[in-house]
């Protein structure tokens, strides 16, 4: 039978005194998100064919696709509505959507939480409305 004694964890606790802190000093030290992290969604207007499967599958209605011209589509993502499940990325047949490692999305201005990817620009430059 095991001997019963108090202060079983005392050794562990004392050894922690000479160890470095386990935490990262976050805002000063940035850390990389793993490869398949589900962060902010990026849209490639040139790949979109306007099938709207992403709109249909989005659990929080955060994504809207509008036709702006012949085979040209514009995408609006509401960052405040998005739950970052990346289902739209899976649903997209043409890989026009991609999840990035960006996660620092807190914002004081509500208007900045609306992101529009314009069809004209080459790589979807962010423009606030």
């Amino acid at each position, binding site marked *: 039978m095991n001997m*019963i004694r108090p202060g*079983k*964890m005392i050794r562990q606790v004392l050894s922690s005194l000479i160890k470095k802190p*386990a935490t990262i000093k976050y805002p000063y030290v940035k850390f990389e998100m*793993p490869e398949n992290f*589900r962060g902010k969604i990026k849209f490639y207007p040139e790949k979109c064919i306007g099938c709207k499967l992403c709109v249909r599958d989005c*659990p929080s209605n955060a994504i809207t696709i509008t036709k702006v011209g012949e085979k040209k589509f514009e995408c609006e993502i509401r960052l405040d509505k998005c*739950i970052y*499940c990346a289902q739209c990325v*899976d649903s997209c047949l043409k890989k026009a959507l991609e999840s990035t490692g960006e996660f620092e999305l807190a914002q004081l201005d509500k208007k900045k939480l609306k992101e529009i990817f314009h069809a004209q620009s080459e790589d979807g430059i962010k423009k606030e409305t």
Partner: protein
Amino acid sequence: MGKVIIPIGPQHPALKEPESFSVTLEGEKIVDVNLRLGYNHRGIEKACEERTYIQDIYILERVCGICSHSHSTCFVQTVEEIAGVEIPERAKYIRTIVAELERIHSHLLWLGVAGHEIGFDTLFMYTWRDREIVMMILKKVTGNRVNYGINTIGGVRRDISQELLKEILTSVDALEERTKYYIQVATQETTLMNRLLNVGKLSHEDAVLTGAIGPTGRASGIDSDTRRDDPYAAYDKVTFKVIVDNHNDVYGRTLVRVLELMEAYSIIRQSVQNMTEGPITVKVPRKIPAGEAFGRYEAPRGEDVHYVKSNGTEKPERVKVRAPTLANIKPVLKMLENYNLADLPIIVAAIDPCFSCTDRTLLIKDKKSNKSKIMDWESLRKYSIEWYKKRGIGF
């Protein structure tokens, strides 16, 4: 001595979630407990009926933050049963691995919370530090620390690469080392044993009568585990022990959880070994054929049950969720009897409660006329103003 009724909750430092206990005391002894649910009702079941099956996976995942994989897997399995789909082998193993990683994180979290409730914060700090290992691995495998979103109807969404599998194995080794240490702490540390032994007794008979499930039931000698009794995912292809303990108290529940961690490590190792290359999804049509099914899943807290009825469209007709805490609420009321008020936090925490999963709307009936009344927003507001006026608070 006269009896005193003390309200604990909906907001109380000892409870992490809004729940109301009104405890009748005789001196320090608890003689009766009344529980009221419904402070955290979110209407998820109804919301599921308005959304498609794919959208439902994500909303059901958010029933519970800690057992999110449990709820989504349970729902997905049920829908797959209605659709008559057999998912690929590899998908089954991936579901098993994520499920066990989730169990590890949930049990380590519970061990910390239990330590915190009895004032043993050292244990809390160390278990939560070690829990970070499994959280990191979950983030790498699924893309998020909680709400993994790995399930889809017909399989899983992400494959696990060979390097990641190796990484899982190394973190499992590190965690096993730590768990062995916690088993030593649980069996040798006198403070822990003196505080937990003979607290919150629930005899085997009472546990059967009140329908205790999961680690709570297994600590009272109920030998039941959905993973073994009704295997899902890849649990029929791995061997593991169902931990049963006869302490019947909070100490027993601690032992069951700590020893279950060791079984989880062995399940992960076997799954990684048995995994074969292959596809991870099969195509399932958006419209699920009409039918109904009942799904069972062993969540870290106990058996989770989902019922889905489909009417042949893209949206389900009915989704019913029975979260494990709902079954373990009744035993808690039994456990609390004849203990001191100071034992309440640890006894309630010992079932690993998750009240927001459990919440239901209450329909209050008038005893005399046996009729219920529906109040709209306006009349509810009027009623509340009147209620406060009667007690001398004006608006």
